[in-house]
């Protein structure tokens, strides 16, 4: 596995690092505190070309590698995990299934719009009764002449009230369970579409997570993404790629907490010495650094497989599982190293710890990742 960065990837990394330091970090505490969706940062990221980073040039993308995109997520997350969600939800969860399953019209209208940084879209799968068991979709779509009528609601949707369109999963045939789920591209200004409760969350507080409600919402037949019954497959494949993004996000959060910790222990003086000179503190740092590097290794492994076209579902789950739990552990220790100050909002590590928690939950909980990993590992013997 050779994943030494190319000249282009190094440049992407260095530019996004500078962007995160100058544009993202300085407002991270404020948007966390006030739950303000940072529209200005979204626009800056669009101008920078981040939304089209891993996508083909023929649709206005940069034609970059998958790795370059995940590096961008990692760099943003070092300073502000919320901001990386605002990149990843449209760029990965919404754009990817349209690129993969959309027809030419859909690609031109929606995929290109995201890639060129003109519009942002989201992804709506989760429902109050369909979380981990995402096949239990209650939202229905009924074909009536030249349009579908969609009824139901979605919850915990990133970009609710902010993004302009969503890839929405709905049941077109209840008798078929997972094979009765279909995917639709729905404009947020469609009559019958409304935004419900916006959640007051522990972390990633500025990313506008909320409820979408569909009441007799009529969408043209052309809004069907892929074929009827392909929705569940589309959703699962989308999440496979998305999981690498969460691994990159968790890695970035941990690295951010690490940078803060290394700085703090060299400045903080107790017993007449910087606390970083005490072995007890150094051991924490050594363990944190080792776990961060292990997570990076798993992430690079899955990206390598994805770029080579090798199936990577299991590896994506492993990278996400390990990286998110590592980020919780590392940010917890970062607070510990900061002592009482780490418990206050004067230092960013408590925010990083709160932000890290979601990485163990969304795009499949740690438990779901274990189900995926186990199902790929425990292969039944041939009878």
């Amino acid at each position: 596995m050779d994943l030494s960065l190319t000249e282009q990837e190094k440049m992407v990394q260095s530019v996004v690092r500078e962007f995160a330091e100058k544009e993202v970090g300085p407002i991270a505490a404020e948007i966390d505190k006030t739950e303000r969706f940072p529209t200005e940062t979204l626009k800056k990221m669009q101008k920078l070309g981040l939304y089209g980073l891993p996508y083909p040039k023929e649709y206005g993308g940069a034609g970059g590698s998958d790795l370059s995109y995940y590096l961008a997520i990692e760099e943003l997350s070092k300073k502000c995990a919320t901001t990386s969600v605002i990149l990843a939800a449209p760029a990965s969860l919404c754009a990817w299934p349209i690129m993969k399953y959309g027809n030419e019209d859909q690609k031109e209208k929606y995929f290109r719009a995201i890639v060129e940084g003109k519009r942002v879209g989201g992804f709506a799968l989760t429902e109050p009764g369909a979380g981990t068991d995402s096949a239990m979709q209650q939202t229905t779509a009924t074909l009536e002449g030249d349009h579908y009528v969609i009824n139901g609601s979605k919850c915990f949707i990133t970009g609710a009230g902010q993004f302009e369109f969503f890839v929405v999963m709905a049941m077109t045939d209840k008798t078929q369970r997972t094979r009765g789920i279909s995917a639709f591209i729905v404009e947020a200004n469609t009559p019958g579409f409304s935004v419900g409760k916006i959640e007051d969350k522990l972390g990633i507080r500025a990313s506008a997570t909320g409820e979408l409600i569909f009441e007799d919402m009529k969408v043209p037949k052309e809004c069907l993404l892929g074929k009827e019954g392909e929705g569940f497959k589309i959703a699962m494949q989308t999440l496979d790629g998305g999981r690498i993004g969460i691994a990159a996000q968790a890695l970035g959060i941990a690295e951010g907490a690490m940078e803060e910790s290394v700085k703090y222990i060299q400045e903080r003086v107790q017993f007449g010495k910087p606390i970083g000179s005490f072995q007890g503190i150094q051991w924490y740092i050594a363990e944190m650094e080792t776990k961060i590097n292990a997570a990076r290794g798993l992430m690079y492994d899955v990206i390598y497989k994805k770029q080579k076209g090798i199936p990577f579902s299991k590896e994506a789950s492993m990278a996400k599982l390990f990286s998110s739990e590592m980020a919780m552990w590392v940010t917890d220790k970062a607070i510990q190293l900061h002592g009482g100050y780490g418990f206050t909002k004067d230092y960013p590590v408590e925010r990083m710890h709160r932000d890290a928690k979601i990485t163990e939950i969304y795009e499949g909980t740690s438990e779901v990742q274990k189900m995926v990993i186990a199902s790929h590992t425990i292969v039944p013997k041939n009878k």
Partner: protein
Amino acid sequence: MKLKVLVCIKQVPDTNNVKIDKETGTLIRKGIKSILNPEDKNALEEALRLKDEIGDVFITVLSMGPNQASVVVKEAIAMGADRGILLSDRNFAGSDTWATSAILSSAINKIKEEDGLDLIFCGRQAIDGDTAQVGPQIAQHLKLPVISYVEELKYSENKVLVKRAIEDGHYIVECPTPVLLTAVKQLNTPRYPNMKRIFETFGENPERPIETWTAEDISLAKENMGLNGSPTRVKKIFTPSRKFEGEFLQGNLKEVARQLIVRLKERQII
């Protein structure tokens, strides 16, 4: 008519993190990241801003340095410049500001002859040498007017209106083009290189390649380049040592003033 703009840029060590070798008095360059000189970025941004504003602007960036300096030329193209040229040759090595400006001017003359030039931008100074000499020297070689410390710029048909910073105020200067301008950081906020253009500019066989010119490509005699062409002789480099500690006079104002007069008299200053 198309506005032709040239921007001179330099790759420098990121001196925010630089350390000085106490024995030799020189910069420790090992492990220090190289960057595009900050005020050169302001110079480039102003050219790009003009391009956004006017539209019909062609921007050439020019740099001199070893091969690895190609990174900053590519970065400039990723930010939006149209053409990038790196002057790189062993004969250029060891050039002081005079030889550097002679080489750059010779290249600029060639570009000018091919296509014409209306505006030349430089950064005020580079953060490694801090001389602020190269920009004005280029103007001297090319016999062009120079306006340094540009804080604000308006371009209209064949002339520029410039707000030029001085220590305790400003000059407002109007000048016909062609003219050379040196940019200070107050001029603008440079944009970031665009992701799409990064992939078009960096890597193997890029869509937007840069040009490398050697001593053969410019019409300047070899004796005017490099060490031979550099009249500057560095006699000694040293870190100034602090010769004595200051003395703090304490007490009320009258008492302090009285002590001060005593001290000054002691030293026969008054």
